[in-house]
């Protein structure tokens, strides 16, 4: 548990389809803090979209529990605080962009008062051309529809946003709009879950990322400045007099610096550290315990490597 009052708490969530023959989620547990931008990555069929469905309260889990803002996910009071960007939105092609957003403004509980301002603000945010706003949606390109999809996400000013493939079908300027929206959400303290196959965008936008496979969370990585902060550091040391006590000394050093020993032998070791200061602490502890450290090289992880290591496995 990272925070005392996380916005999302998922405990042992399981969900299967076709009367149990297809397991989509297999005992997922996670929590997301207020204001955190949390990414979901993983191969197709890993269970990411199903997880979003359960977070929205639209899918009923077979077992386990989802709490959003401390309440059950399917309560209307929770939905009033939640925005959702589906991957495959079908639009009412007879509507105009303004009508579409007025519709969603009404559904999100907004009255006539403030509707026009909210609609125009959302359209401005997604940078949809003024000339297109009163046109029927049947004339829209895929990218324009995705911008409108983003506009409906922000129309009710949600405190929790669930985005399923937000950059799908967008050109580079559209992708920039997604970044702007996420950045504004971050400023406003909105919590967001982003499910995406665009790993570079996930790295850029998210604070933490969960890698899912076969309905399970395999790994959760913390990201800062576009790279995973939890990383592996390779440390080489020279011949030392710690023959019998090498491993215990290394383990003590790791324990003191909150690092994890991944591999250790006579001349080198690999450690998982939280961040740069964790790495510095580890090196200081190793030197203090008599290891003549000669070299320390960080092995930076990128999200793609999660998939690559998966393939190797």
């Amino acid at each position, binding site marked *: 548990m990272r925070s005392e009052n996380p916005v999302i708490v998922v405990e042992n969530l399981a969900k299967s*389809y*076709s009367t149990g023959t297809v397991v989509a989620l297999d005992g997922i547990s996670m929590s997301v803090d207020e204001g955190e931008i949390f990414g979901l990555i993983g191969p197709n069929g890993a269970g990411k979209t199903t997880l979003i469905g359960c977070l929205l309260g*639209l899918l009923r889990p077979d077992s386990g529990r989802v709490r959003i803002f401390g309440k059950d996910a399917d309560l209307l009071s929770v939905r*009033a605080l939640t925005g959702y960007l*589906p991957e*495959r939105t*079908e*639009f009412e092609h007879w509507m105009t962009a303004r009508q579409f957003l007025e519709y969603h403004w009404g*559904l*999100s509980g907004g009255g006539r008062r403030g509707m026009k301002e909210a609609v125009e603000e959302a359209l401005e945010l997604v940078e949809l051309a003024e000339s297109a706003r009163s046109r029927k949606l049947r004339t829209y390109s895929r990218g324009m529809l995705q911008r409108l999809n983003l506009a409906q996400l922000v129309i009710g000013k949600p405190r929790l946003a669930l985005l399923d493939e937000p950059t799908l079908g967008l050109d580079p300027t559209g992708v920039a709009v997604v970044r702007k929206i996420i950045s504004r959400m971050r400023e406003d303290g909105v919590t967001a879950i982003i499910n995406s196959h665009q790993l570079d965008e996930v790295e850029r936008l998210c604070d933490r990322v969960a890698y899912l496979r076969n309905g399970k969370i395999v790994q959760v990585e913390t990201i800062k400045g576009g790279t995973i902060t939890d990383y592996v550091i390779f440390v080489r040391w020279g011949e030392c007099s710690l023959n019998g006590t090498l491993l215990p000394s290394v383990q003590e050093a790791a324990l003191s610096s909150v690092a994890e020993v991944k591999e250790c032998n006579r001349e080198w070791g690999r450690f998982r550290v939280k961040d740069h200061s964790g790495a510095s602490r580890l090196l200081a502890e190793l030197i203090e315990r008599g290891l003549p450290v000669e070299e320390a090289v960080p092995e930076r992880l990128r999200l793609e490597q999660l998939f690559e290591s998966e393939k190797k496995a």
Partner: protein
Amino acid sequence: MKIINKTIVKFTLMSACLDPLKLLYVALLGFVMPIGMKIASMLHGASDSQTFEMLTGKVGVAFILMVLCLGLAGNSSTQSGRGGEYLPLIFSRPLSKAEYVFSKWIAIVLIGGGLAAIQNVMVAAIGFVFGETITIQAIVSMVLERFLDAALIAAAMLLTMLNRHPGFQIVAILGFYIWLAGQTIPPVSVAGMASGGIESLSIEATKLMLSASQYISYLILPTLNVYDLMTASSFAALPYLSYASTLALYLLLAIAVTGRREFFYGTK
């Protein structure tokens, strides 16, 4: 707890009027034909035909709703067509399943009842111009009856649209056709006596089918004859009970199947 969502009602009403071909069909079947028939019968001093009675009664309401409103609730948010990919987004909003069902029902009742009531009033006005005696009570009864017809048919349609079970859909379609047969087979065609043989068998079979469809009709779409009930010397509770219980059953079942169904992408 909110029961009706004005946004759903408003946009459902808007989406029902989109297709010009459907509107043309409703204009022809709902207005041009019955008005033409009324004028013709008035000019020639003939009584109203059974087709006319059908088009200005419950069958007329059913035709209007079948054309304009089929698919307005189950497949997408407001309009039929491109798959069921819209409802998850709608239900991700603070909108209960009951609110959705009631809002859709109100919109469909307004469309069917409103159009049929306008048609009935126009027909009555034509009769009045040609010298027929029309009372205010009769007009109010007609209008009320059309809305009551629409309320029941709309509830049955909603249940069929929201329930995705293929078996139920088949039963619903069969039920509708049997009901339609009961409403449309002219009694005169089975009134005649036959000498025997194949002709007699045919007449008996038709009679059986007609009475079966009438029983089914009473069961699935019981009618409230408002004028008769208003002018009756004694109060009869059974027709009201029969109508109200069927309506309540359809609406509750529609809410139940919507509540039970998982609206999300890719779930089968």
